[in-house]
């Protein structure tokens, strides 16, 4: 059974949303989903770029208010 873990990376300049994703994805199982919350407008572009390059999977990306909710499934 896969799990979803929510990572609140809103209002952070260091380490920043993508660094938070890279850090947390190490500690979840293959198949699990991380929902990353980010107020960084660049996240909608740079997170999918990294996810695609490494071989994980974006399963959702939407902006609610000023917060991006980006869901990433760990694929390997």
């Amino acid at each position, binding site marked *: 059974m896969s799990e979803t873990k929510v990572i*609140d*990376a809103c*209002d*952070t*300049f*260091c*380490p*920043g*949303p*993508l*660094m*938070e994703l*890279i*850090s*947390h994805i*190490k*500690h979840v199982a293959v198949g699990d989903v991380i929902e990353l919350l980010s107020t960084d407008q*660049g996240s909608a572009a*740079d997170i999918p*770029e*990294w996810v695609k*390059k*490494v071989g994980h999977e974006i399963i959702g990306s939407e902006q609610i208010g000023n917060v991006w909710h980006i869901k990433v499934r760990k694929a390997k």
Partner: protein
Amino acid sequence: MRILVVGGGTAGTIVANNLSRRLTGEIRAGKVRITMLSASDRHMYQPGLLYVAFGQMTPDQLYRDQANLLEPTIEFHVDPVKQFQLDKNKVVTESGKTHEYDILVIATGSRMVPEETPGLTEGAEFFYTEASAVKMYKKLREFKGGRVMVAVGVPHKCPIAPVEVMFALDDFFKARGIRDKVQLKYHYPIGRLHTIENVAKWAKPEFERIGVDTETLFNIKEIDAKNKVMKSEEGTEVEYDLLIVIPAHRGMEVIERDNLGSGGWIPTDRYSLKMNGHDNVYVVGDTTNLPVSKTGSAAHFQAEAICENIASIIKIGEPVRDYDGKVYCFIEAGHEKATYAMFNYLNPPDLKPPSKPMHWFKISYNHMYWTSVRGLL
């Protein structure tokens, strides 16, 4: 009121000393008692390790006796915690003793885990411990020329260190007269040169100026130490003659063993710095899971917020402030110049051009640190 501080690094020491001063009257009256449990009888100035790696400080300059840094009213034991029993408001130590508390402050810190990346321990140099920093210096001294590759694990302590290393390497090889024989290349995990956008924008022309090649979206997967090849999660490979890595970090083992937080990072409220779900447990410094730099400066500002609140809760029954995410990082920029990045949750840093006075301020701070952890600065 029994206040128990677990951890004698920057965060724990500032918390204990600051609280001791704020609560002097209560301690004298026997109403408050502060106890610290630490894993060591010595206190290390960790930022000094970078200077050790470049032969600018010796290891003995990094240490002070922990007991001498603490206010005399603080009860100090070198006896690390073996088990947290948060439901019973007590901890059990390695020696088998039990310490009960009314307020607990967890400041156990973090540790590098190079062993979790295949080949890294055999194939790379680090500077996050005394032994590794000395070893790195010896490697640098015997280096005659070739490809020096720098890469960064995630998460890591002191986010400015990767940038500072590049300037230090440029200075070091220039001073040894072999800069023209050395290729410097910097690899970074995300799509720009630093996680702080303004630092990345500043570093790009600076790296070009000193001749540092760069590759972004590079996360270390494994090292082939025999053939001197570093491979990334993103599918690229680089050959090296000398590899310097800022290794990935974890929180301390006891945190993971007691299921207090994944990766050893404890879920913490970003404003109150209380452990989620525990009203009498505070978390400070590297130990938190907050999206905040793991650096002594963040630990310092968090410690001050915690101390003001604990003291005010004891005196008037209410906390008085939130932690605003404040961090202040010096950035050594080579050629005896430095700048700094100051930011909080809402305001990004505005980097100023590097200057010699800022470098000398940093060098001075290397000594002023001991005043800082005593809670005086």
